[in-house]
């Protein structure tokens, strides 16, 4: 198994592809930021699922329409984060659930977003690992799957999952600290 793999497209490459109208680039961009947008809505602002879905679709619609105004293609992540934050605040203010003076609430949300930024950086490192490490770590941590479920899905003995997770975490650590 390869421990690391050839580079996936950078954020800037995806943005450039989207600007050219490449549907695969758009699909990949949505896939790359879908967890981030969803997590900001549900964790930082604790929106109910239907509100979070509204924010999610609005963010990607605005991103699609305004991609041309992005000053630097590398800046897509903070830009998407800010779009999402603003959409969440707009929704909460429009529904009367917060008023603009509630700075403490916004600060708490910003603290969560800061941790999500860190988590995105780790996922970036994960994307540079081999496919088996990506699968195992994502299934165990992000999808909360059991050793048995992972073993069945990847056709590997469940008894070896713990050691593989540990080894893959070692590779991930080396990747993000590089």
């Amino acid at each position, binding site marked *: 198994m390869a421990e690391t793999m050839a580079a996936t497209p950078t954020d800037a490459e995806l943005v450039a592809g989207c600007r050219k109208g490449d549907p695969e680039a758009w699909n990949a961009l949505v896939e790359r930021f879908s967890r981030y947008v969803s997590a900001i809505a549900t964790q930082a602002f604790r929106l109910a*699922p239907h509100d979070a879905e509204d924010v*999610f679709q609005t963010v990607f619609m605005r991103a699609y329409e305004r991609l041309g105004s992005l000053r630097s293609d590398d800046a897509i992540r903070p830009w998407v984060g800010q779009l999402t934050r603003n959409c969440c605040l707009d929704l909460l203010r429009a529904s009367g659930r917060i008023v603009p003076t509630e700075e403490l609430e916004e600060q708490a949300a910003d603290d969560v977003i800061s941790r999500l930024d*860190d988590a995105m950086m780790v996922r970036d490192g994960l994307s540079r690992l081999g496919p088996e490490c990506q699968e195992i*770590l994502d299934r165990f941590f992000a999808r909360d799957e059991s050793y048995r479920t992972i073993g069945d899905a990847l056709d590997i003995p469940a008894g070896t999952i713990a050691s593989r997770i540990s080894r893959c975490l070692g590779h991930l650590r080396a990747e993000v600290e590089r």
Partner: protein
Amino acid sequence: MTTYDEERLGELLRLLPPAPPGWVEAAQELPRARADLDALIALAERDAAFRQALVDDLEDALRVAGVEPRPVVVEHLRRRFVA
């Protein structure tokens, strides 16, 4: 340099579970939805009967026009022509 032990890496990985697949698929369809939307807005602006049909029954008017009433399209048209 920031250090990431295994526990911290695990915590950070847990923070980003997958978004619901339906949300992702709908967002990936946005470019097509956007194209539908642009065509529908142009039609509604030049055709009063179609504009009235949108007001009367938006989703049915879309189906008659041969456009799948995707939620994002319906919502945008509702805000623009119905609400």
